[in-house]
Structure formats: structure tokens, C-alpha cells
């Protein structure tokens, strides 16, 4: 598969993940909803680091900022940091079995939410509930599923 096709696939799947992220759901389902876009960005930046670079993380984060109405640039900064880590550590992560990958994802999501939490605090949006941490765990739990689904879209591993 050429990298151009790959890029289209990456953009398409990321868009679907964004839609899943912002789809209106009942409150309890919304509370446990994993951050699909973050998972997709993590997947593509570890599995196809030459095609999906930091631009994907930055633009995906900006989209989250716009659709979730958070401080403009907040998710963009945190998600570009995650892609930076993924680009640096992708060889380490790709070699691991899938459940160990889930642990890496757990740590990554924990870092993601902690950074958002810190920025929220700095900018005076410190009102937060413990519910915001739930998606860290559900995200790590469905990581094997993410790999299974997104893995179908590309042949070169």
C-alpha cells in the first residue's frame, strides 16, 4: 500500500473516531466512552509513524478543542505531545504483545488526562469530577479492539 493510500485511510478512520467522540450519547454511556480519536491517533502514530506524523495529533487535538469547546490549543498541545512520544517509542511498543501494549496505552492516556487536568487548573477551569478519569481505563481496555479494527485497514505492519 502506498503512503498516499495510507494517508487517506488514516484521515478517514480518524474522522470516524472524531464522530464517535462527539456523538451525543446518554450520560452514563458518555461517561465511560473512551477517547476514540486519541486511540486512533496513538495507533496510527505508532504503526505508521512515517505517514501519520505530529500534524495528525495537532489537527486532531484542534478538532477536539473546537467540538468540545475547551480552551483552543489545549487538546492540540497534549495530543501533539502524545504523538511525539509515540514517534519516539513506536519501535519499543510495536514489538510488545497486545496486552502489554494496553498497559502502554493506559500510561499514555493517564498522561493525556493529567496534562489536560493541569492545564484546566492553570487556566481556572479547575472544576472537575473524578468521572473524567474513567475513559483512561476504558480506553486501555478496548485497545486490542482498536488494533483489531484499524489493523484491517493496512497490510504493512
Amino acid at each position, binding site marked *: 500500500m502506498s503512503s498516499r493510500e495510507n494517508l487517506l485511510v488514516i484521515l478517514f478512520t480518524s474522522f470516524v473516531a472524531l464522530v464517535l467522540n462527539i456523538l451525543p450519547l446518554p*450520560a452514563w454511556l458518555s461517561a465511560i466512552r473512551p477517547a476514540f480519536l486519541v486511540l486512533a491517533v496513538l495507533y496510527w502514530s505508532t504503526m505508521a509513524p512515517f505517514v501519520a506524523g505530529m500534524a495528525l495529533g495537532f489537527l486532531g487535538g484542534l478538532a477536539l478543542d473546537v*467540538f468540545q*469547546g475547551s480552551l483552543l*490549543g489545549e487538546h492540540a498541545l497534549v495530543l501533539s*505531545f502524545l504523538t511525539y512520544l509515540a514517534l519516539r517509542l513506536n519501535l519499543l511498543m510495536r514489538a510488545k504483545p497486545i496486552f502489554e501494549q494496553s498497559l502502554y496505552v493506559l500510561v499514555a492516556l493517564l498522561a493525556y488526562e493529567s496534562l489536560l487536568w493541569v492545564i484546566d487548573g492553570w*487556566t481556572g477551569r479547575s*472544576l472537575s469530577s473524578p468521572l473524567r478519569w474513567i475513559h483512561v481505563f476504558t480506553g486501555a481496555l478496548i485497545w486490542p479492539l482498536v488494533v483489531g479494527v484499524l489493523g484491517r485497514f493496512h497490510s504493512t505492519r
Partner: protein
Amino acid sequence: MPAFGTTGGRPIYGRGPSPGLRFTVYGLLSLLLMYLDQRAGWSERLRYGLQGAAYPVQVAVNSPAAAWHWLTGSLATRTSLQAQNLQLHTQVQSLQLELLRQHALEQENAQLRELHATLPPLVKKWLVAEVIGVESGTLRQRLIINKGLRDGVHVNQPVVDGAGVLGQVAHVGPWSSEVILITDPEHALPVQITRTGLRTIAVGSGNADELLLTYLAANSDVKSGDVLVSSGLGGVFPAGYPVGHITGVRREANQLLAQVRAAPQAGIDRAREVMLIEFNPANPAAPAPAAASAPGEP
């Protein structure tokens, strides 16, 4: 130039600048955006553009729900439509009866105020908007509606439904706008308890069915069932619009403040259609335009 991947072979480590450099660039860009959004009002224009770009996606994401609504609406049976028609008919009649009485009351009020002409109506213009999105986030209570600057919506415009106050417009896009609900933790609404006339602030709890009255002293006269209306202070909402009713008061001996909870009157998480209101500044019940800053908005 092998370093730039022009040899045709697969480059060993990435193309272009190193990840560290790229992260620095993107990080600085994000920090700049955050600074502009937090400190300078400049980013309102950027948000305006982005909200316009986001509108088609929001409509697309909402389309299954809208299609379902349309389908159930168009497949409604004749009998259920007749029943609904009858119900609406009786509702209109009772509202008309109340309106008759209200006209008389308004005239009486004008006489009592020794104004010889009747007052101009409080509501100058109103606009019905459809809810096309709900912002997800554990504590965020926001709606996206399908009316924007093109329809004359402006920031801080009050938003109500048939039952009471819903919130106010926080950001305006060309075709859509974002409404911050009264239950959002970043929103504070000046209210008054009708039974005692006590004024206080109702802060959102992040829960669609709860408001918190966090600034009431432990000895203040408030009890379950008291009705809250907007007090007209704060410059956004006019006086006397229904907000909610008190659901629980807890006083503890070692606390200076009572813990008071209220349930909003408006259908916060059920509203599909909302009303945007513009008030006539000549009416004394209208909010004072001088203090038109958003309460609770950072």
C-alpha cells in the same frame, strides 16, 4: 540528498525535521493559541471561523437523531395526531385565558407606576432554534444550536424553553452557536427566592438536574419547595423568569453556609427546541445593558 529520503529507499528515521523540532513547533503553536484564547479576545474571530467549519460535521453527527425524529413524526397515526391536536387546542385556550388576565395586570401595573401609556412589551424579538449537538465532557453542560450570527444571535443572549431559563449564548458561529446551560459549573445565575425575596446566586453543578445555591448563610430562610426566579441582576436575564425550585437544604452546625440544592425548571437535557430572546430595553424588567458581562464566564 539522502537525508531527505530522495534516494527512493525507505528512510531510516522519518522524513523532514526531527520529532523534537516538530514537537517544539506544534507545542509553541498550541501555547500561542491557548494564550490568545485565554487572554486576548482576538481568538473569538478564529473560533467563529472554526465553528463555521465544524457546522457540517455537527449537522451530520446529529442527522441520525433528526432522521428518527422526522420518521416518528411523519409516521404518526391519525388518532395520535388528533389527540395531540386536541391537547394543543386546550393548551392554547388556557394560555389565552391567562393572557387576557395578564393584559389587565400589565395595565394595572402601568397605572400603579403612574405611567400613562402602557409599557412596551418585554420581549422585542424571539427566535426558535433547534438543538443540533450536545457537548460531551464529564462536567460540561453545553448545547449547539442551529442559529448563528446570520440569524442575529449575539453573545450573552438569554436562551429559554417553555418552562424556564436554559442558559445563555457563549460563542457565536456563522450558522450555529454554543449555549452554556445554567447547570454548567462555569455558569452562575443571579436568582431570587419568590417566597422571601431573598437574592442569591445559583451555580451549575455539572449535573443536568441540579443547581447549587452555594452562598446562602446557614440561618437564611429557605426550605424545600421554594421557587426560584431570575433576579434581573447581572445584566443578562430579565427579572422574574422561572429558574427552578429548591429540592434540599442541609445545615450543619459547624458550617457557616447552608448546602442548598435546586432542580432547574427547564428541560435541560430534554430540550430539542429552544428560544432565543431579545429584550426591549425600554421595559423596566429588562436587564440593564450597562452591566452586560456574562456572569460566571471566564
